C-alpha cells in the first residue's frame, strides 16, 4: 500500500498510571476496524500475561491501524506504546523520539499527577505536539472543567476543546481519532535521502531472529538493503521489512521516510541492535547518527541463586534466554560462601528486578534465593583506582578506601497539602535534600528532592503511598554520583559471616539498620537444637545482637491406633520445610531471610 507522508500519523499515548492509557489504545484499535470484536483481547498492546496482571506495560510495541476520517480520506495511524514505569525511562524516551505527537490522557477525576507532568515534559523535550484527552468522564467524581483548567494552568497546553471521553465505555473515541488527524503533524523526511532509521525497540523471535522496530526518519529500506548499525558498527542484509498488524508482523516491499515498521536481518543477539541506535544503508550511509543514543546501564544489582544448588545450569540457561529478549538485563557468575553458585544480575530498577525474578520462577519453574538488591557504588581507592561496586562482598578493606560515592536521583513528588508534613518527613528520613516546593493549586504541592538511590529502591514508593493514604505520586530521574559516608554492614549467624546478607549502608543509619536486621532475622530463622546468636557488625565490630533460642519441645505424643500415616505426613512436612532452607554452618536459613533487609521498615 502506498501512502503519502501527509496521510501518516505517528503518535503515542502518555498518562499517569491507571489514567486509562491501555484502555484508550484498545478502543482506538477497535474503532479503526482493523480487528473484529471477537479478535479483540482485553488489552491488545499488553502481550505478556505478567504485564496484564500488573496492569503495566513492560515492552514498548507498535500497531498500525487504518482510519477513515470524516473528510473521507484514509489515514495510517501508527500507535507506539510506551512503557509506563520510571525503570524504563530511557526506552520511553526512544519511543517518544519515534513519534510526532502524543495524546495525553488525564483522569478527569484525579487530575494531574506526577507522571502526567514527567511524561508531558519528556514529550515536549522530544518536540512532540501534545493534545490532552479527559478520560473517565463517566465517573460521578469526574470534574472535566476543573481538570481542563488545571492542564492549562500547570502544563500550559490548550485544553478547552479537549475531548471528554470514557475509554472504558467507548464514549468520545471518534473525537480522539479526529483530533489525532487534525492536531498531530504528519511526519517529514526525505525518502530519497540516505537511510536514517531510529531503533525504538527490538525483540527476539526464535524463527526470525532479532526483530528491530524502527521509525524511518529519512530514506527507504527494503529487502536486501545492507544495513549498518551506527553505534555497534555491525552490518547485515535486511531479510524482511514490514509493519505491525495487531499482534502480527505483515511483510511489505519497503519502508520509507515517515513510516513505522520492522526489519529482520538474521541477527541472533539483541545486544547488537540497541534501542536508540541509528540504522543506515551501508552502501549509502547518512552523515550522522540520530541524537540521544546511550547505552543503558543497570541501576540495581542483586545476587540470584537457585534454591536447589543442582539447578545452577538451569538458572544459567533461563537467564540466557531472558536476555535474548531483554538487553538491559545483565548477569555474571558469582560464588557465595553461603549460597553457592549463582549470578550477580543487573536491572534497570526494582520493578525490572521483580519482573525478571518472577519470570524465572514462573516461566522457567525455578525456585530462587535472591539477595538484597543494591545500587552501584563508586569506590575510590587510595591507590587511585576506582571500582564500580555491585556486590557488597567485594568492598575493599576500609584502609584501602579513599572515599565512596553513591548514585543520586532528583525526584518530583506531587502531594496534597494535608500530607505535606508526612512526606517531607519521609524524604528527610531518607536523606533527601529539598530543591523545590511549588504550589500547583491551593491544595496541592509539587515537592522536588535530591535523594540517594539506595534510599528509594526498596520501599520508598510503598512508604509514600501509605503516609499519604495514596494521595502522593512520584517520579524520578538519575542525577549522577555524590560522595557519601558509607559502610558495609555484615551479618553473622552463629558466628559465621554470611556474605549474602551483607549490605552497604549510610554510616549514621548502620546501628539502626543492624538492630532491625537482627530482629528481622530472629523472626525468620527457625529454632534449632542449639542457641543461635545473630549479630550485625561494621568493620569487624559487633553493633547489634539477637538470639534464636534453642528448640525445646517437639513431639507427637499420641499414637493413633496403628495408623502411622499422620505421623509420617508430619515428618514429611518437617523435612520438606528443611529442604527450602539454606545451610549456613550448622544453621538452616530460610530463603526469605536473604531479603530481610528489604523489610526493615515494616512495622
Amino acid at each position, binding site marked *: 500500500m502506498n501512502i503519502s507522508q501527509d496521510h501518516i500519523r505517528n503518535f503515542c499515548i502518555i498518562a499517569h498510571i491507571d489514567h486509562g492509557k491501555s484502555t484508550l489504545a484498545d478502543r482506538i484499535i477497535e474503532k479503526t476496524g482493523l480487528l473484529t470484536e471477537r479478535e479483540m483481547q482485553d488489552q491488545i498492546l499488553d502481550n505478556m500475561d505478567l504485564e496484564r496482571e500488573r496492569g503495566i506495560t513492560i515492552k514498548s510495541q507498535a500497531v498500525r491501524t487504518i482510519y477513515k476520517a470524516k473528510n473521507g480520506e484514509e489515514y495510517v495511524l501508527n500507535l507506539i506504546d510506551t512503557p509506563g514505569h520510571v525503570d524504563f525511562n530511557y526506552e520511553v524516551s526512544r519511543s517518544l523520539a519515534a513519534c510526532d505527537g502524543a495524546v495525553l490522557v488525564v483522569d478527569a477525576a484525579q487530575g494531574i499527577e506526577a507522571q502526567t507532568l514527567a511524561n508531558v515534559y519528556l514529550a515536549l523535550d522530544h518536540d512532540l505536539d501534545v493534545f490532552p484527552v479527559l478520560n473517565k468522564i463517566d465517573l460521578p467524581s469526574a470534574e472535566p472543567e476543573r481538570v481542563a483548567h488545571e492542564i492549562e494552568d500547570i502544563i500550559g497546553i490548550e485544553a478547552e476543546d479537549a475531548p471528554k471521553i470514557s475509554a472504558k465505555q467507548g464514549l468520545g473515541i471518534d473525537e480522539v481519532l479526529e483530533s489525532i488527524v487534525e492536531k498531530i503533524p504528519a511526519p517529514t523526511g526525505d525518502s530519497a535521502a540516505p537511510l536514517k532509521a531510529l531503533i525504538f525497540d527490538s525483540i527476539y523471535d526464535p524463527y526470525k531472529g532479532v526483530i528491530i522496530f524502527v521509525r524511518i526518519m529519512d530514506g527507504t529500506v527494503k529487502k536486501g538493503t545492507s544495513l549498518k548499525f551506527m553505534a555497534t558498527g555491525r552490518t547485515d542484509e535486511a531479510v524482511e521489512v514490514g509493519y505491525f498488524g495487531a499482534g502480527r508482523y505483515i511483510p511489505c516491499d519497503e519502508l520509507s521516510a515517515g513510516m513505522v515498521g520492522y526489519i529482520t536481518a538474521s541477527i541472533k543477539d539483541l545486544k547488537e541492535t540497541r534501542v536508540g541506535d541509528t540504522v543506515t544503508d551501508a552502501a549509502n550511509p547518512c552523515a550522522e547518527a540520530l541524537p540521544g543514543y546511550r547505552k543503558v546501564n543497570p541501576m540495581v544489582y542483586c545476587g540470584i541463586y537457585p534454591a536447589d544448588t543442582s539447578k545452577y545450569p538451569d538458572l544459567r540457561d533461563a537467564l540466557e534466554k531472558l536476555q535474548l529478549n531483554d538487553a538491559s538485563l545483565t548477569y555474571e557468575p558469582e560464588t557465595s560462601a553461603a549460597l553457592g553458585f549463582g549470578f550477580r544480575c543487573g536491572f534497570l530498577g526494582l520493578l525490572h528486578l521483580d519482573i525478571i525474578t518472577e519470570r524465572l520462577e514462573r516461566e522457567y519453574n525455578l525456585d530462587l534465593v535472591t539477595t538484597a538488591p543494591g545500587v552501584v557504588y563508586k569506590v575510590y581507592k587510595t591507590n587511585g583506582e576506582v571500582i564500580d561496586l555491585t556486590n557488597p562482598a567485594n568492598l575493599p578493606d576500609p584502609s584501602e578506601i579513599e572515599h565512596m560515592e553513591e548514585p543520586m536521583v532528583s525526584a518530583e513528588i506531587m502531594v496534597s497539602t494535608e500530607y505535606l508534613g508526612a512526606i517531607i518527613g519521609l524524604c528527610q528520613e531518607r536523606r533527601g535534600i529539598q530543591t523545590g516546593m511549588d504550589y500547583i493549586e491551593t491544595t496541592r504541592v509539587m515537592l522536588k528532592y535530591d535523594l540517594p538511590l539506595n534510599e528509594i529502591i526498596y520501599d520508598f514508593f510503598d512508604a509514600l503511598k501509605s503516609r499519604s493514604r495514596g494521595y502522593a505520586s512520584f517520579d524520578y530521574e538519575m542525577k549522577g554520583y555524590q560522595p557519601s559516608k558509607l559502610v558495609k554492614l555484615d551479618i553473622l549467624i552463629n558466628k559465621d559471616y554470611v556474605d549474602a546478607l551483607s549490605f552497604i549502608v549510610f554510616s549514621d543509619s548502620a546501628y539502626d539498620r543492624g538492630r532491625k536486621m537482627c530482629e528481622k532475622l530472629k523472626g525468620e530463622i527457625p529454632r534449632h*537444637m*542449639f542457641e543461635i546468636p545473630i549479630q550485625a557488625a561494621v568493620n569487624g565490630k559487633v553493633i547489634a545482637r539477637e538470639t534464636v533460642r534453642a*528448640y*525445646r*519441645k*517437639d*513431639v*507427637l*505424643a*499420641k*499414637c*493413633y*491406633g*496403628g*495408623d*502411622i*500415616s499422620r*505421623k*509420617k505426613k*508430619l*515428618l*514429611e512436612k*518437617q*523435612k520438606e520445610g*528443611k529442604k527450602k532452607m539454606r545451610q549456613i554452618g550448622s544453621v538452616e536459613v530460610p530463603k526469605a531471610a536473604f531479603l530481610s533487609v528489604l523489610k526493615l521498615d515494616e512495622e
Partner: protein
Amino acid sequence: MKNNGLKPLAVYVHIPFCEQKCRYCDFLSAKASDEVKLQYLLSLMHEINQTDGSKYIVKSIFIGGGTPSCVPAYFITKIMETLEKRFMIAVDAEISMEMNPGTVCKTSLIEYKKAGINRVSLGLQSTFDDELGKLGRIHDYKIFLNTYGIVRSVGFKNVNIDLMSSLPGQTVDRMQTSLERVTALEPEHISVYSLIVEDGTPFARMAEEGRLNLPDEDTEIEIDKLTRSFLAEKGYRRYEISNYALEDYECRHNLVYWNRGDYLGFGLGAASLIGSTRFSNTRDLKKYIGARGMSEMNIQRLTDKDAMEEFMFLGLRKVDGISENDFEKCFGKNIMDVYGDILNKQVKEGMMHHEGDRWALTEKGLDVSNVLMAEYLF
C-alpha cells in the same frame, strides 16, 4: 512358647463412638444412635469373619476408640467371640480395652472380663474438675475414683491410666498433685500425653482466639521434667515417649506398632500392617456399614526405603531405641551404611545415645523427637 509355625499377630478393633466429643479430640469418633451402633457391630463382625486368621497366633488385642465402653457390653462379647472363631488367641494374650470413667458399671465390667478383657485403659486425663471441664470430658475426678474402684474390685490386674500434660491453665503444682493422686492408686501403667492442639478441633479455634491459656514453654518443660522424675521415683519406667509402666507391664500391643510387627485392624478407619503392606479401612461410617465389612481398602506397598524410615521413626519412640542387628536382619544392610551420618550427627548433638547394639534418643532427644525423626526420611 512355641507357635507351631504360626505368625504372631496383634489385633486392633475400633469403636468409633463417644457420648460426647472432647474439645481437643481429632480421633475418628462421633456420637451415634443405638441403631447405627448395632449396624456397625454387624459390619465389624462381617469384617472379622471374612478374614483368614489360620496362619496367625494373636498375642494381643486392643479395643480402642472412641469409647468402647459406650456401646452395650454384649458388643464386646460378640467381638471377642468372633475373633476367637477366626483366630488362634494365645493363652497369655494381652487383651486391652479403653474405657472412660462413668461409662461403665459393675455388671458391664464383669461382662468385659468374661469376654476375655484382661487389661483396662482408663481415660482420666486430669484429677482437676476444672481442667476436665475445659477439655469437654463428661466425668469428674470423683466419678473416676468410683470407676477405678469397681475396675479393681471386679478383678482387673492390669490397669492403665491416661493423663494429659500441657493442659489449659495447668501448672507444675497441679501436675504434681495429679501425679500424686494417680500413683497413689498404683496402676500398672500410666500414659502421659502432651496436649496437641490439632487443626479443626474446637481447641484450635479457641487457641486462635487466644482463649486457651496454654502453659508457656518453660512451664511445659518443667511439667515434663517433673512427670519423668516423679514417675521414675515411684517405680514407673518410661519406655516410650508418652508411656510409663511398672516392670513387665509395658503395653505389648503398642510395642508391636513401634517394632513394626504384623497387626490387623478391624473397624472404621482401622489400619493394618502385614509384612511390607500397610492398608486401612474407609473412614466413612456410612460406607463402612453399607459394605458389610467389604469396604474398599486404602493399600500402600512399602518400599525398602519406606520400611527403613518407619523402622527408625517408630523404633526411636521407644526409650530403648532400635537394634543394629534387627535393622540388618530386616533390610540386609548395615545401619551405618544407610544412616551412619545422621546417627553420628545426632550423637554429637547430644540427642542420640549409642551403646552396644542399640541406638536410642537421649532424654533431650525425646523432647524434640519430631525434628530428629524427620532426618531419617529419604
